[in-house]
């Protein structure tokens, strides 16, 4: 009845989980720095946040290289096909036990909504966080780099906005992992690489 497809390759799984861990740690330290709570305290939180940020930048360099050399970047090309069907499924179908409108294959491992969401994260939230974050890190170099007129307040607020959006994404993303044919199916697939499809 069901077949198994190998969708997530080893590097991809390594990338995903390292990134997940780093982002969650970045979140933890971010709101510590922000003053929402105190776990490490501002000074240590800044130091850890910086280390984690550089680690993630390093990971991204490898991930970007991997995506382009393997052609996997195409997985993120947005499509309007079945977007409405997917939305319908999440809004109505899922409650009626309707069939999943998207057939997953190795070449199309993300459903259309996932593609849009991930692309949005990669094209908007990600750059917002990285650009503001790197500027924040190199605040002392602004004058040398010719950004003397940049406002620290705007950079900081941009970074904070990015953090809130990333947190919202994280919540939705984690929840939607349970929307497979069993609640843990997607997570299993992300660990083993093999997704069971009907």
């Amino acid at each position, binding site marked *: 009845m069901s077949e198994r497809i190998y969708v997530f390759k080893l590097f991809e799984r390594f990338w995903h989980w390292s990134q997940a861990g780093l982002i969650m740690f970045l979140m933890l330290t971010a709101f510590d720095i922000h003053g929402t709570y105190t776990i490490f305290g501002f000074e240590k939180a800044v130091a850890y946040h910086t280390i984690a940020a550089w680690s993630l930048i390093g990971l991204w360099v490898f991930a970007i290289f991997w995506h382009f050399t393997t052609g996997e970047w195409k997985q993120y090309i947005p499509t309007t096909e079945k977007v409405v069907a997917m939305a319908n499924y999440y809004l109505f179908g899922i409650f009626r036990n309707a069939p999943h409108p998207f057939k997953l294959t190795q070449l199309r491992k993300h459903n259309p909504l996932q593609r849009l969401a991930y692309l949005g994260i990669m094209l908007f939230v990600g750059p917002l966080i990285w650009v503001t974050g790197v500027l924040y890190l190199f605040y*002392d170099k602004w004058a040398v780099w010719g950004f003397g007129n940049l406002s620290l307040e705007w950079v900081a607020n941009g970074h904070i906005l990015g953090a809130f959006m990333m947190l*919202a994404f994280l919540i939705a993303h984690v929840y939607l992992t349970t929307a497979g044919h069993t609640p843990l199916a997607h997570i299993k697939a992300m660990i083993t690489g093999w997704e069971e499809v009907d």
Partner: protein
Amino acid sequence: MKHAFTRATLVMCYAGWLAAVGPVLADEPTPEAKPLKLTTTADHTKFKELQKQFNSGPEVTKVCLACHTEAAGQIHRTKHWKWEYLNPQTGQTLGKKTVVNNFCISIASNYASCTSCHVGYGWKDANFDFKSEDNVDCLACHDTTGNYKKPPGFAGNPVTKDTEFPPGSGKIIKGIDLSKIAQKIGKTSRDTCGACHFNGGGGDGVKHGDMDTSLAAPTKDVDVHMDAEGLDFTCGTCHSSSSHDVAGSRYTPTAQDKQGAHIRGKADNGNPATCVACHGNGPHKKDARINQHATKIACQTCHIPTYARGGIATKMVWDWSTAGKRDAEGKHIVRKDAKGHITYESRKGDFTLAENVKPEYVWFNGLVTYTLITDKIEKSEQRTPINTLGGSPTDGKSMIWPMKVFRGTQPYDPVNKTLVTPHTAGNDDTGYWKNLDWDKAITVGMKDSGHPFSGKIDFIKTEMSWPITHMVAPKEKALGCVECHSKDGRLAGIQGIYIPVRDNNKLLDTAGWAIVLLTLLGVFGHATLRIVTSRKH
């Protein structure tokens, strides 16, 4: 031939060995060897001129000037001598001779007491001869014995014979031997500078807050540079002087030093007493971000976490308006707190003292404008500034500086609307500290300072700012980030800069958490629906 060569070589080698070892073997103490004074080429104990009885300070000075011919002339040009300073930035004539503060207020009519800290002899009234060379006091700064004293009331003269003071009091001031002191003169020290500067305001630590007798031999924690068991800086290490002119000023402080570290051979007429003069403008090697902080924040702000750290309290508030009370027998009252600090004196009023005080912080560009006795002042809810600090976040010259803000209530003339200069010290009928009579004290004092007095007396609230710059803590004790990167942190009142955490945008936070909350709600709602509907199927 060959033999001869070998022998010659051997002899030469042996001679070389002897030459190398000889001095080591001969290194026994010779009878002529004597301890060398490494810091000076002259041993003043050998000077016949100093081996005699001196009955007064000027007698000593005459002898000094016989060799150090230009010394008095150099002193004559300094603030230490003139107690007068023309601030080129504001055009104001300042100096102890002129300014009015909210401690003991003014030296006018109180010379004999105040001038015990003058580098001269005999300044007992407004007619002191500032051209006199013999009246320059060399010993005040160059004493190394610690025995040199200039008691208040003697117009800057040391007491050389046992003297009853005040006359009829039965209190004897011991005479000191100026000959021994003069023979042992040397460089200035923390003790000589401190004799006056640690005791500014009339007592240990009273005035500055960052200077008191704990700096005579401080621990590393109290002052990392002066640490008596470590770097052991004297005052002069930073306040290096040339031609007797000591660097550094509270009238024209260097708020921002862009010149960088002073280097030999580099033309540099900047203030050598700044932090930057040694440390340069990028001293934080590990974290460049801290150097960025240092473009707007004075070193002192982070590196002097609190002042009055040496166990000696500094005066924070002085209320003259409550002075003058007497006990049931009509005598002066003195009240002390549990630690022995005087909190009330009939002569002076109420005091508040404090140790380990967190400074207040302001933008400061080095421009200090005084409220002089010639300036009109208005009594209001706001305190009248004794000195007004220039500075703003945008003038490009200001840094965030730590300050001791000294608050007082002092007499003023409500008709002429000026501060007043009361006659306080003095064993006479008009001195306030003796007779507790403001009318007499202010009338005499104002006559001395040469300013009109209406005869009406009121009290006015004042404040005076003292830049904090001494008592630099070891780097481990510098302020941590959260001292400022927090709500209600140390820089809560500083305008014009964005400080992460302090300036978190409320709207953004509300919107951000709303997005997160809505996502959570959506997720929970969706999940609940899924669970409910899956049961139906």
